[in-house]
């Protein structure tokens, strides 16, 4: 690991100032960053340790019915917060389907959003990777790429964003609060992660030194609690990143879907909100046919980036099944295997 200098600011303002210099990066739990530093993938000159900052680890219910989650809340504390799990079950299920219990105990909300891709060529410093080393090329494009992107990719980069947490968050319209050198601003989570285009080295819309301080769920996000599921297909049942995942959240009134939210994970460089599919679902009865139509719409623009055409078919099936599960109703208890299609309580007919 390259040597770095370590600073521990006492306030958010001090942190932002300390991170202004080139080569500085923020340290939260470090579950992704230290791994990247040990592999020589990330080589910061300075770590600005956020873990001792006050006031970033609260879960606050807002007067307008929204929720504000501090950036330093751990993934486990958020998922196991009873009020949170009751109001946003699809987010809790996604959180509990990610990583391992040890990692969830440490990993933070802000860190989860900003975790880097798990593309093996990004991790392997002997490979060419435009994300790690801008302009060097992409060895994934002609390499082992069955897990790579099928939406929004470019010839420069076919990596996916690995987060489970972000998938239901983007479906529910989460907002990210950012502290930067010009003060506080906020953006939709859907605007945070960037598609690769010609600049895959930039994962997000953040500027150097920007600090995520909180994630907010708008008041409407609470309205989906009765019909919301996260479903995740992976190469083993636990402790693995998504091959494809889907978050489906419905509001059902008088037998019809009054509003639908749908997002996909593991398919693109960002959590993929499927708005065209949501439009198909609005105002109709929740039937298998309409779910098939929604799944088709969600993947209309998909194309394989390598040996991964199967992911498109898989994603359609996962969308149908997640919608079917959501329509059947959020289970009273978290399934024994969160988000797993093999859970004994997964319940749904096979899509």
């Amino acid at each position: 690991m390259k040597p770095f200098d370590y600073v521990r600011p006492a306030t958010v303002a001090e942190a932002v100032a300390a991170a202004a210099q080139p080569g500085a990066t923020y340290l939260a739990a470090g579950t992704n960053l230290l791994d990247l530093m040990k592999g020589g993938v990330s080589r910061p000159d300075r770590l600005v340790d956020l873990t001792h900052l006050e006031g970033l680890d609260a879960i606050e219910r807002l007067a307008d019915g929204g929720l504000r989650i501090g950036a330093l809340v751990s993934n486990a504390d958020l998922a196991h917060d009873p009020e949170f799990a009751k109001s946003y079950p699809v987010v809790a299920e996604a959180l509990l389907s990610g990583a391992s219990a040890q990692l969830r105990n440490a990993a933070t909300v802000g860190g989860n959003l900003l975790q880097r891709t798990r593309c093996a060529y990004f991790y392997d410093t002997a490979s060419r990777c435009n994300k790690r080393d801008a302009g060097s090329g992409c060895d994934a494009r002609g390499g082992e790429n069955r897990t790579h992107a099928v939406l929004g990719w470019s010839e420069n980069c076919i990596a996916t964003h690995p987060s489970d947490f972000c998938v239901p968050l983007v479906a529910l319209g989460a907002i990210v609060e950012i502290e930067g050198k010009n003060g506080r601003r906020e953006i939709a989570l859907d605007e945070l992660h960037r598609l690769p285009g010609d600049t895959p080295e930039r994962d997000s819309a953040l500027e150097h030194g920007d600090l995520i301080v909180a994630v907010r769920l708008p008041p409407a996000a609470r309205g989906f609690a009765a019909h919301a599921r996260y479903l995740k297909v992976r190469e083993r049942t636990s402790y693995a990143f998504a091959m494809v995942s889907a978050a489906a959240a419905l509001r059902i009134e008088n037998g019809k879907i009054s509003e639908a939210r749908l997002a996909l994970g593991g398919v693109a460089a960002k959590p993929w909100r499927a708005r065209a599919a949501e439009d198909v679902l609005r105002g109709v009865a929740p039937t298998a046919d309409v779910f098939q139509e929604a799944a088709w719409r969600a993947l209309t623009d998909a194309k394989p980036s390598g040996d991964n055409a199967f992911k498109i078919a898989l994603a359609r099936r996962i969308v149908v099944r997640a919608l079917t599960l959501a329509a059947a109703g959020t289970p009273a208890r978290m399934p024994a295997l969160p988000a797993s299609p093999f859970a004994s309580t997964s319940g749904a007919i096979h899509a």
Partner: protein
Amino acid sequence: MNHSISLTVNGARREFVLDDPRVTLLDLLRERLHLTGTKKGCDRGQCGACTILVDGKRINSCLALAISHDGANIVTIEGVARGDQLHPVQAAFIAHDGFQCGFCTPGQIMSAIGMMREAQAGSDPERIRECMSGNLCRCGAYAGIVDAVLEAQAGMDESNQRRSA
């Protein structure tokens, strides 16, 4: 630049001067305190052999910088027995052959203790497997590990009942 930190390790308060901020909790425990029960398996957060409790919660000590945990309360495998009296999870691992080569065992035991504190698995073997998925066992002693955790959990439930009766 030197950094001073203080940690409570298995009940004893310890002061350290770090001449390099790159030291992980895992390396500090093994190299500075010679507490080698905590194992370095993958050193990348994938195997769980380095699991310890930090402020009561199980984490991977290989992905935790010591300097960032100034003031933390740490429990390792060396700190769970009371003298010659094994921790109930340790005893259950022996009773159920919850290991073969033993390398992953300290991490498995610390993870199981952390899991029981989290109270998310109860006595459901499927939940125990899910909640213990961050600990790999190359020997494949998983069946014994699940049985050991089930027994330890049952023992804890029973003693809690006795206490509340």
